[in-house]
């Protein structure tokens, strides 16, 4: 019966109901889409790095897990030294350069060593770069920027010509020659990372231990574990950023629910007076208002989750290089956030409604 009051009340005020549900949906979508974008991007970078096919990533002391954040601070000649170590099959030096407009990592590679470590870039069209102003792009970047072989694009304030399009998934979306990248970066003979392929990939950690002894202080990362590492926790500020997003969404949700429920109890003062005169307890009134609020939030969670997938799909169709990851974990976080908004936002209005004096409620018109 209580649900009948709630549902009929919601039906009777379609605008308020609709706007409240929409606001809760936005709260949920805000969390799922923004966190999905950050998580998805990190996850996608991790997968691409893992896709290089190397066993170990060798970086300068104190280097960040985000390759683009480090610049070129390793001497290229280390590659020879590393390659001479026991158990190492091949070393691919890479200079990682970031372009801000458009935002993309560029791998400066030595095609021969990179192909040996990665098993080779798979060309869908064109061929490897042969000039300093030529680049190879992956199919996603090609679709995103509507580029085909022979087209030009400006990256890092330089005009580049597309010489080939490769299948995505191996390190970066844009590749250029290592020397050209070093020149562009004003860092001759310097690189950002060495991708190391072991002769026997079964015991990567033992190889890392050995290399650590030979190169104390250098960052050595197990590449297959890198994708898992890129899920967030290890990226500086990642969890804090997500926490801020959830907090902001929660605040918005609480305010919307508060306003909505406060308005509704003001509108329904006389109805509440009628219920109180019939003998409805304060708890009855509190649970009535809270259940209404929670119902709005549940509908908001469902629509917000569906809406998030629609937003993500639309965003991907317009910007193919964007990566999203809507995980169950964040769905639960978004749902809890919305439900907490429902409870907290309706707490004061419901207590206010319950504490209304029946006599005064009847005098209210």
């Amino acid at each position, binding site marked *: 019966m209580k649900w*009948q009051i709630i549902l009929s009340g919601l039906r009777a005020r379609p605008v308020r109901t609709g706007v409240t549900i929409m606001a809760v949906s936005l709260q949920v979508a805000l969390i799922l889409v923004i966190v999905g974008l950050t998580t998805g991007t990190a996850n996608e970078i991790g997968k691409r790095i893992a896709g290089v096919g190397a066993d170990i990533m060798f970086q300068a002391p104190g280097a960040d897990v985000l390759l683009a954040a480090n610049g070129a601070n390793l001497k290229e000649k280390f590659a020879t030294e590393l390659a001479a170590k026991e158990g190492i099959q091949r070393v691919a030096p890479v200079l990682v350069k970031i372009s801000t407009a458009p935002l993309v990592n560029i791998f400066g590679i030595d095609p021969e060593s990179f192909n040996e470590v990665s098993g080779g870039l798979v060309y869908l069209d064109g061929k490897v770069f042969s000039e300093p102003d030529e680049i190879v792009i992956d199919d996603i970047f090609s679709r995103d920027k509507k580029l085909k072989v022979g087209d030009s694009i400006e990256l890092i304030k330089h005009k580049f010509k597309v010489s080939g399009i490769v299948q995505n998934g191996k390190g970066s979306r844009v590749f250029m020659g290592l020397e050209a990248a070093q020149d562009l970066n004003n860092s001759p003979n310097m690189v950002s990372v060495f991708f190391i392929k072991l002769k026997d990939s079964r015991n990567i950690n033992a190889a890392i231990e050995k290399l650590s002894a030979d190169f104390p202080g250098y960052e050595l990362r197990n590449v297959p574990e890198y994708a898992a590492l890129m899920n967030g926790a290890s990226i500086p500020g990642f969890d804090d950023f997500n926490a801020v997003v959830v907090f902001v969404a929660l605040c918005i949700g609480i305010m919307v629910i508060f306003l909505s429920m406060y308005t509704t109890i003001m509108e329904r003062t006389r109805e509440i007076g009628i219920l*109180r*005169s*019939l*003998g409805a307890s304060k708890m009855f009134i509190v649970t009535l208002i809270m259940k209404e609020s929670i119902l709005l939030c549940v509908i908001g969670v469902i629509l917000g989750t569906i809406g998030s997938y629609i937003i993500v799909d639309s965003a991907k169709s317009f910007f193919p290089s964007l990566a999203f990851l809507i995980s169950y974990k964040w769905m639960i976080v978004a749902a809890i956030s919305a439900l907490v908004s429902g409870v907290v936002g309706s707490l004061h209005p419901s207590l206010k409604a319950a504490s209304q004096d029946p006599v005064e409620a*009847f005098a209210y018109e």
Partner: protein
Amino acid sequence: MLIETVDLKKTYRTGKVDVEALRGVDVRIRAGELVAIMGPSGCGKSTLMHLLGAMARATSGRVLMDGKDIAQMNDSERTAVRRTKLGFVFQKLNLLPTLTARANIEIARTIQGSEGDEKIDVYLADILKILKIDDKLDRRPSELSGGEQQRFAIARAVSHRPAIVLADEPTGALDSKNSEAVLQMFRELNRKFQQTILLVTHNPELAGYADRLIEMRDGLVVHDSGSIASAAVGN
């Protein structure tokens, strides 16, 4: 004795001024009576009804119902009294506007715990026939006339067979034809089911439908046509 007030006083504070709405009211209502409380606006009749209806606390004095003083009870105790022993009919906007008439009655029965009680079902069916609204149960208040709304409010008020029904200006928002019909129905409920009914009004015509008339002025009872004391003197 069903309900009795003893030196009942109620003072409201408005700003720095104390307004004495009741200045010592002694009233005794017997079971099965149909009583009209009359008086001009501001005489304290609605305040008396609120105190008899466990809707407010008295400043002093007592309201005894089944030997318990409801005037000094806390909110949850008064709520329980309203739920189990009382039924209310107000001047207007008695029904929850978003629910059908049937749901308005059902919500009362849910709150009062009489949902699914077969005896009450039979009784209620009878009441709805007497009130001539048994064919309008699925209408919303906006689809009912003022008189029909008031009749549903009466049906809801008696749906759990309360000890006493309190009606505050029940015909105040009705035309004369509907007023008469509603008052006739109060009388029929009183006669057929011995339902105790207390009508509060400022309309002298309404008094003709009651068995007993209590007149109030300035927070005091100035005349009671059928008080226990006057009945004893009469005997």
